[in-house]
């Protein structure tokens, strides 16, 4: 395996891990505050759908991203009301959110675009043009036709080439690593990676983080300190929504160009697994999701491993990331202790 292959695999791993990382951090905020969240999948899906829909209707990916955030936030609100305000079962609420997103996205998508739940492809073309035209017409009333055209011309996140990427390419190892793996991703990838130190900082260096962690361990301690448990938990659940929103927006408007039904394809559950793997810690989340991304990238790269005697069937290679996860889990990780108050609604009076 030469350096180039390694770099390509790493590059692919970075892309594959980004939605996992964002969703994993989303789960981290929520669960650190004591609210279990198996609805990551649904929130991501909803975000992917709303991001792609608005991007398709406006031709503006930023508006799409905002819509993605709102979409996920809406489901977060449902989760919050059910599991915080009404002290419902957090698992049930999560399950229902997954179903809700899975159904609503197709239902609404079919209603809006009539493409069987798909949104139009977000690449310039007739399909997209037809959708954007009314918005552009409306917009040109405000900004003039040129402004409108400019504002509706980027329906999708492009790749960003970081400074000096080409200049450094010549430097051995570091150069290609920088140019191939680090540079050339959508802005949301960088946002996701920045979220890791940011989350660490918020969690361990700020008042909000201290209270957040406390409310996930012993909400009564926060309550008796005169801080509202409800408000903290809602804040955490909202942050989880925003991060899922980013994850979904990345899936639909960064990695691919449009929404397809069920396009999250179980990534929310993998993110949940990564979260446990990471033992609910931000840097751990980075490591765990990178591992998942890497395993998938490797399996993608070597779909039919020819071992001479036998050729490993593609099904096995497809399942390899999952098999390795189990093995790693069995061998190295050991018991992961969740936040103590997790999963339990905070009840003062019965």
């Amino acid at each position, binding site marked *: 395996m030469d350096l180039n292959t390694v770099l*390509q695999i790493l590059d692919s791993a970075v892309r594959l891990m980004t939605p996992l990382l964002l969703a994993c951090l989303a789960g981290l905020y929520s669960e650190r505050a004591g609210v279990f969240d198996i609805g990551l999948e649904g929130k991501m899906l909803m975000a992917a759908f709303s991001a792609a829909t608005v991007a398709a209707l406006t031709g503006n990916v930023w508006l799409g991203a905002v819509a993605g955030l709102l979409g996920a936030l809406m489901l977060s609100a449902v989760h919050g009301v059910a599991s915080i305000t009404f002290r419902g079962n957090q698992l049930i609420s999560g399950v229902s959110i997954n179903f809700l997103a899975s159904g609503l996205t197709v239902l609404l998508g079919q209603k809006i675009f009539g493409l*069987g739940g798909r949104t139009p492809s977000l690449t310039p073309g007739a399909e997209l043009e037809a959708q954007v035209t009314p918005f552009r017409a409306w917009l040109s009333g405000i900004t003039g036709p040129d402004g409108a055209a400019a504002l509706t011309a980027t329906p999708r996140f492009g790749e960003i080439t970081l400074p000096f990427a080409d200049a450094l390419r010549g430097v051995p190892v570091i150069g290609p690593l920088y140019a191939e793996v680090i540079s050339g991703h959508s802005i949301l990838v960088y946002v996701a990676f920045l979220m890791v130190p940011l989350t660490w900082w918020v969690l361990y260096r700020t008042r909000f983080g201290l209270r957040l962690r406390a409310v996930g361990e012993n909400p009564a301690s926060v309550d008796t300190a005169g801080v509202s448990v409800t408000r903290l938990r809602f804040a955490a659940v909202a942050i989880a929504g925003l991060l899922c929103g980013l994850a979904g927006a990345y899936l639909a408007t960064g*990695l691919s160009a449009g929404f397809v039904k069920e*396009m999250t*394809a179980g990534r929310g559950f993998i993110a949940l697994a990564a979260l446990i793997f990471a033992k609910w810690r931000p840097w751990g989340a980075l490591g765990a999701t990178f591992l998942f991304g890497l395993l*998938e990238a490797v399996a993608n790269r070597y*779909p039919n491993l020819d071992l001479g005697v036998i050729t490993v*069937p*593609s099904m096995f290679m497809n*399942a390899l990331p999952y098999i390795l996860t189990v093995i790693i889990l069995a061998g190295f990780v050991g018991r992961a202790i969740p936040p103590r108050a997790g999963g339990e609604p905070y009840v003062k009076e019965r």
Partner: protein
Amino acid sequence: EPALIFDLGGKFDKSFNEAAFTGAKRWAEETGGTYKELEMQSEAQREQALRRLAETGANPIVMTGFAFGDVLNQVAPDYPDTQFAIIDMVVEQPNVQSIVFTEEQGSYLAGIMAAQASKSGTVGFIGGMDIPLIHKFECGFAQGFKAAKADGKVLINYTGTTPAAWNDPVKGGELAKAQISQGADVIYAAAGGTGIGILQAAADGGILSIGVDSNQNHLHPGKVLTSMVKRVDNAVYDAFKNGVQPGVKVMDLKAEGVDVAIDDNNKPLITPEMQAAVDDARAKIASGEIAVHDYMTDNACPVQ
């Protein structure tokens, strides 16, 4: 009144269910007739749907997908007066027409075109699930490609093992990128909704892609080399219009059941040599001079 039953993928699957839908729609538009249509919701409904349609007097009843084969075999004898047509599967009953396509032949042509278009000598194939039907595509494609470029290389990936494999454009895109990084400059996508991601990644990566089932050339004009079209629409249209003749109906190249799509969107990509090579192969296949091996006959492919 004819009826059409879609398989679990649903009529908007960007694939052959959708093609069937197109055919039915065309029939309805042309004749002004009406037809019944059903989308499967679960495995258990197959029999239910067939019987219900038969009992309401629909005739003929056309269904898409091999998964109906088993059930149809049970149900058809109970409704001797009803004509059935099944696509992609052979069911031997006196009132059933089995419509099969020679995907390997269409894919062969796609392989020829890929070989012509490829500069690197490496092309890719990405299938949805690793099931026999998809191997049929894969094997035909490889044969065509190898026929034109004996020393070329075909990279092969399958997206997954769960139904999600047909609806994962992200994974499809990533697989395409992996193939691109290994040098592939034409990628053939036979993966349903996942294909959207593959075509997208190919367009983004500046290489060519080949669509499948329906004509997908328009998705990225100038960037989709061609589409291996499987004229399920024609089959449905035919069945609706002319009725059903029991027996096996092979929709091969000769019968225009499969072909590579060439239209305004990909015209500029088609060089005269390419066109000539395709025409030549098409003629030879039609005449039987070239026999494209069908994976299904022995579960093996002569070329790798």
